[in-house]
């Protein structure tokens, strides 16, 4: 995978919202990248800034009150932060697409499904109505909705939740985008439907070679779809690495906590679910040190004073944690230990 081209590179991204109480720093210096054909998962609790990060890439955060304070979003060699609204129009839907969390509210209730797919095609690919419609039927078929010719003539309320999310995927992939951002695409769905949607996304990725950014709070969801995982906490990335790194050799106590709070079905594993106590900090006034310190079993005085620098574990795996410091005591890694 090493020699693949970079598709997206986010550098030192800061996003803030101005509210009545003051500035809420939702994203505070985030770096990550996505290669072509790769799936990157961004994982974290609600409010950790993962959705804001995703929407910033599309520049879909409401501005004002939101604003990108600092940083760059390099997509295909161009910095999207500097793009005007007009320029963004030719990126959205054509180069980068997005699927949202709630398929019940994400489709226009008064427009036929087919038309909603056709819109982007007509705009970006200069298709005629007829061509666009044929392509829309093709797309509906591709995402596994039976009776496509009939379905394009229907309205969203005639679709079930899972079908709507399939339709959303059809809309998003209609123009063959290079990058698909899926913002909690399965959270609002039944568990059985969740698996179907994930399988569909994986299959389509193989077929169309699209890169995917998958935003989720559920590590279970990303396990068999993501190549790499970025863990976010309180507007910062605290650990990132390949899927294997994160699942089998995590280094940050927060990641440990996340993994321990995911129910597992393998019989060998009899360990109890361990909740992460407490709440993430309010980003209205983020703490100066490590934001996780207050909830961390391994917190040290230094954690409350200084934010830990990046430590490279391996080429793709890095973490922000004082436990990596040479002066820090050696602690048992509960994930690695637990597996033995």
């Amino acid at each position, binding site marked *: 995978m090493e020699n693949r081209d970079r598709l997206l590179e986010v550098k030192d991204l800061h996003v803030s919202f101005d509210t009545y*109480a003051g500035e809420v720093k939702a994203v505070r210096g985030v770096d990550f990248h996505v290669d072509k054909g790769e799936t990157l998962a961004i994982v974290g609790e609600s409010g950790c800034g993962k959705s804001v990060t995703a929407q910033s890439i599309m520049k879909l955060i409401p501005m004002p009150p939101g604003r990108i304070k600092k940083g760059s979003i390099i997509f295909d060699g161009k910095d999207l932060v500097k793009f005007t609204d007009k320029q963004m129009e030719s990126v959205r839907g054509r180069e980068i697409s997005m699927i949202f969390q709630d398929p019940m509210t994400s489709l226009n209730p008064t427009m036929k499904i087919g038309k909603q797919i056709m819109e982007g095609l007509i705009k970006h690919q200069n298709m005629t109505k007829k061509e666009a419609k044929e392509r829309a039927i093709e797309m509906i078929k591709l995402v596994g909705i039976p009776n496509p010719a009939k379905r394009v003539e229907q309205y969203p309320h005639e679709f079930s939740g899972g079908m709507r999310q399939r339709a959303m995927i059809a809309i998003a992939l209609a123009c063959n985008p290079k990058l698909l951002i899926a913002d909690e695409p399965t959270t609002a769905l039944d568990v059985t439907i969740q698996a179907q949607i994930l399988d569909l996304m994986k299959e389509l990725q193989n077929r169309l070679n699209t890169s995917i950014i998958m935003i989720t709070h559920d590590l279970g969801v990303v396990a068999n779809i993501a190549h790499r995982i970025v863990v976010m906490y309180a507007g910062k990335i605290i650990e990132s690495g390949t899927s294997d790194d994160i699942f089998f050799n995590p280094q940050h106590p927060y990641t440990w906590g996340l993994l321990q709070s995911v129910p597992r079905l393998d019989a060998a594993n009899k360990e109890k679910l361990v909740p992460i106590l407490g*709440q993430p900090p309010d980003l*209205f006034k983020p703490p100066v040190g490590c934001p996780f310190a*207050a909830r961390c079993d391994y917190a*040290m*005085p230094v954690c409350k004073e*200084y*934010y830990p620098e990046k430590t490279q574990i391996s080429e793709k795996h890095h973490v922000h944690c004082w436990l990596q410091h040479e*002066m820090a*005591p050696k602690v048992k890694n509960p994930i690695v230990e637990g597996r033995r």
Partner: protein
Amino acid sequence: MAQVQLNKDMFKIVGKDVEKSQELVRPSLTYWQDAWRRLKENKLAILSIVMLALLLILSVVGPYMRPYSYDEQDFMSINKPPSAEHWFGTDALGRDIFVRCWMGARVSLFIGFMTAILNFTIGVIYGGVSGYLGGNVDIVMMRIIDIIFSIPQMLWVILLMVVIGQGLHTIIIAFAISGWGGMARLVRGQVLQLKEMEFVLAAKTLGADSWRIITRHLIPNSMGPIIISITFAVPGAIFSEAFLSYIGLGLPLPLASWGTLASDGSKVLLIHPYQLFFPSLLISITMLAFNLLGDGLRDALDPRLRK
């Protein structure tokens, strides 16, 4: 993030401090505190409260500020424009318009507030019963409302006024009979919605009885929209009264309301425009104040807008 002053002591594990993580950085506000904060921020709403207070005070003291009574006719000074003696001028019978305007304010505000209170009472009872009982009772009760209130209130008021005769009390009765539909619908909607909510269910599982659920949960939670609706009901009634007086179905003489004053004034508009000007101005200011206040309250009390 300067890597200075790191020493061994700083690398001792002390563990988590859950309490601290749950410390609230933002000031926490109750529903009413937050509503009040929002309302205070709305300068127009505050200005409206001041205006309404001023109007209320003037309606009490206004008539005593000048040495005339509201029905005192003075044929020596008929249709006099505003002057030092008659601040708002005089009408066709030589009556002082300033005094009449504030007497009118009493009548108009009385009608407004009484109507709002009566509509509120009937509406809350009818809507509350309908929503709380639900089922077929609810369907029938709502169908009745749908039918009766598909005809504009004004037509009912006019009919009722024709039937029961003109007068201050009959106006209020007519408004009360014909105006509670909106409130009943609102209350019923609130009750239905709240009845289904988890916290009411939670209260039920904890063994709270119906009375407690109604007084502690339903009423406080539906107060917001109801207060807003009342705020709009007051000017609505004042407006309707003015309308009725204007078409000759309002108060009998020599009683004055802003409506009758405006009606009288409009007859001589082209010759003595000031006679319409003052009562209209007062109606408009009152309406404006109530509407702005209502808007402010809506913004302040609507929990969906809380962030």
